[in-house]
């Protein structure tokens, strides 16, 4: 018996044909900024105002049912004016065996809503994003650092953070 792990990826070339993108275009076209594909991995860029609404839809829609949030992370783009951060949600549908990625662009001090109400596992994942990037999630039940000690200065995965830290090694 062989397992076709590639089934999780999208076999087509056009991201518009991905079932999640089709559903988002039909129901939430206003909040959808753009879509993209790389190596069979499809993502959607979503405005922060509509992010919670769209992520709830992706979980609850019976045709998609992204019931598993495998990761929340972020990317720092210091040169991108007005949208310095991308918060990235990696979704997986256990029943459909489909993966999907949602990116939410944020500016330097902008907050986004927490998704702990949608996937409870997001509590620690969002704490890690806050610890490493300094992105705050409004409505988070316990917004503390998780990996670095309390009282740590700065957010290490920001590009302006010095490579070897602020203390002499």
């Amino acid at each position, binding site marked *: 018996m062989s397992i076709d792990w590639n089934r999780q990826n999208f076999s087509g070339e056009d991201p518009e044909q991905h079932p999640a993108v089709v559903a988002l275009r039909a129901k939430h076209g206003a909040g959808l900024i753009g879509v993209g594909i790389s190596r069979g991995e499809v993502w959607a860029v979503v405005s922060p105002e509509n992010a919670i609404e769209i992520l709830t839809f992706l979980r609850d829609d019976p045709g998609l049912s992204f019931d598993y949030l495998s990761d929340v992370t972020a990317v720092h783009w210091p040169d991108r004016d007005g949208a310095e951060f991308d918060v990235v949600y990696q979704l997986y549908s256990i029943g459909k065996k489909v993966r999907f990625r949602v990116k939410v662009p944020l500016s330097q001090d902008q907050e986004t809503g927490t998704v702990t109400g949608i996937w409870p596992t997001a509590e620690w994942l969002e704490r890690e994003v806050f610890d490493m990037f300094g992105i705050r999630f409004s409505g988070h039940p316990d917004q503390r650092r998780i990996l*670095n*000690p309390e009282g740590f200065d700065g957010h*290490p995965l920001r590009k302006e953070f010095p490579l070897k*830290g602020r203390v002499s*090694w």
Partner: protein
Amino acid sequence: MSTIGKNKPTRVYRSKKPQEGNILLTSASAVINHAQRSSIMPLTFGLACCAIEMIATAGPRFDLSRFGWEAYRASPRQSDLMIVAGTVTNKMAPVVKKLYDQMAEPKWVLAMGSCATCGGVFQTYSVVPGVANLIPVDVYVPGCPPRPEALIHGIMTLQMKIDQKVNFSASLTTVEPGFRGPTRKEPL
């Protein structure tokens, strides 16, 4: 007696009469050192991949129990050797320090691998550059990770260090915390 505190080797006096034999003359210091060096109880804790090698050392292939050190204790109150096996992060540093403080004297520390020795490849904001910044280290074992043979050699080196410990001394009335005895004169 003049031999007290000088760790004279144990001498065996043999009598020609069989019933008067089996007499050992030695110093109390040597007996105490012999007991401590032969029943080293390490603390059960590992921080990173070096712990896997430490577990392999305790397993049947390398069989640490041949030497009498296999009794890993799950409580710092019962252990007298702390094997720092792995990367000490800034977040973990207060825990390591607290474990060391909870161990009863006499106690020894063995820094296993590059990370515990000097931070290893992790010259970053989150890693302590060597566990010697937190607690006094007796033996360093190099390697990334060290082979089980290297760890065994490290503990044997620690045994030689324990052998040199002076337990009773006329000149030393108060023992400072962290006192480890004299250092060995000749190279190991």
